[in-house]
């Protein structure tokens, strides 16, 4: 692709991601409704799709208020960070054989870096609000994110071993014979859970935890700034789903249909699975979350790492490693 085309494509991806996140707010509520034997928003427009527009109008026209006790600059800066970081994360995702914004040889690390930067949004939002609930939410998110980043990174190392590259296009190409969800099912399991924790979605939305902390880190936020947090959360959901598809379910690989359609279908199903998790599983207690991470996830990841390394060496005689 030429430079101009790449810029256009990047803008298209951004628009699609933001639009998708907006539609997802409605879709998630509808899907939760299906699983909870109710309808969800179904009044505005066909199937209630215009609910998105109504919500947007509401959020845009709300009073843009900064609490007088808040740290003003940081308070305004915080919600933008998550959106920027998550949108940057989309840059390395391959949507098709030649359909990507950039294909760097550190694509996976770039993704990890962007998700880890997204933490600051929550953290600084909680800190700048100068509110005890927000602070507790920020504290929780800091500990949760730092812990789960470890397994997130380590769980992907098995994929990197098998494909022998950090580039996402190479990883997708390496899945031509077999999707990595079969040899790397432990990695998939850990990455799935770490992904939920990273995008602080239910059941791991302890930074928000509306039952204990009113709304956690965004207690003091309203209007467009609150919408930015929500946008970031849904962008994170899409990003994590796209990454799971890319890394474990063969990305754009698939017969008959064009690659981007396959990518879209697979991502859609992973998003549905995330919403199913939200509908089914209650939020764990904070210490349970931590002990799950360090006592269960870390050993699983390490076992997966060692086993994958050993098998890769045995099968290819070190071929995949070097």
């Amino acid at each position, binding site marked *: 692709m030429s430079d101009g085309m790449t810029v256009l494509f990047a803008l298209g991806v951004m628009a699609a991601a933001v639009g998708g996140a907006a539609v997802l707010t409605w879709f998630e509520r509808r899907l939760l409704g299906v699983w909870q034997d109710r309808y969800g928003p179904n009044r505005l427009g066909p199937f209630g799709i215009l609910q998105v527009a109504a919500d947007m109008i509401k959020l845009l026209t709300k009073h843009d208020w900064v609490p007088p006790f808040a*740290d003003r600059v940081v308070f305004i800066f915080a919600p933008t960070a998550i959106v920027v970081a998550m949108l940057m994360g989309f840059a390395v995702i391959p949507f098709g054989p030649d359909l990507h914004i950039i294909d760097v040889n550190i694509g996976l690390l770039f993704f990890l*870096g962007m998700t*880890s*930067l997204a*933490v600051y949004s929550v953290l*600084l939002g909680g800190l700048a609000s100068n509110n005890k609930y927000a*602070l507790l939410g920020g504290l929780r998110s*800091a500990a949760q994110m730092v812990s789960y980043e470890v397994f997130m990174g380590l769980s992907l190392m098995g994929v990197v071993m098998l494909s022998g590259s*950090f580039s996402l296009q190479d990883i997708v190409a390496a899945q031509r014979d077999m999707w990595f969800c079969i040899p790397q099912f432990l990695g998939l399991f850990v990455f799935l859970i770490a992904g939920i924790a990273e995008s602080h979605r239910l059941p791991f939305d302890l930074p928000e935890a509306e039952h204990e902390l009113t709304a956690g880190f965004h207690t003091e936020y309203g209007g467009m700034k609150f919408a930015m947090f929500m946008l970031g959360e849904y962008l994170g959901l899409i990003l994590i789903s796209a990454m799971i598809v890319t890394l474990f379910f063969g990305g754009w690989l698939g017969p008959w249909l064009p690659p981007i359609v396959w990518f879209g279908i697979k991502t859609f199903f992973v998003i549905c699975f995330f919403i199913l998790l939200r509908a089914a599983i209650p939020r764990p207690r904070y210490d349970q979350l931590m002990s799950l991470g360090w006592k269960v996830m870390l050993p699983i990841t390490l076992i997966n790492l060692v086993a994958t390394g050993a098998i890769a060496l045995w099968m290819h005689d070190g071929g995949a490693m070097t």
Partner: protein
Amino acid sequence: MEVILFYISAFIALFTTVFALTRTNAAHALIYLIISLLAVAVIFFLLGAPFAAALEVVIYAGAIMVLFVFVIMMLNLGEAGVERERQRLNPKIWILPAILSGVLLIELLLVISKLEAPATGTLIGAKQVGLTLFGPYVLAVEIASMLLLAGLVGAYHVGRRFRLRATDDDATEAPLTTEISTEIQKEVSQ
């Protein structure tokens, strides 16, 4: 193009580092430090070390600085902290370190002016880093890992829950201690 980007990011790095030093609000200083680290990561990338750049973002900006912010949150610094920081910024304290680092800067400039073609231009990816680490530097890696393991064990020792011994004659504390010890047993059996 690369040169312009380099100078922009270098300028941002210097600027934000100075700000990180002079801010009296700890949270603001940390934000400047994070931006400084990100700018350094961009410089690494431009110099042909994308792996180092990514690790800079993931580890320094993404993990270590999060812990810094975490500590700041726990400390509950307020106006008093800002005031104390302001007092620390008087020239009496920083003049000596400034002179020393100025000397270092002059030395650095002298060394750089003698060098020719500083930028190599070769791309150092993950594979090269890995081969180097586990080739010639394997001893250093092992020593570092031992150190980290020691740190891990030490942290576990500090953070572990102390097991209370439940004795029958200690009737007043018996309910509490048995409760805790059964809880611990449960955890151990898990």
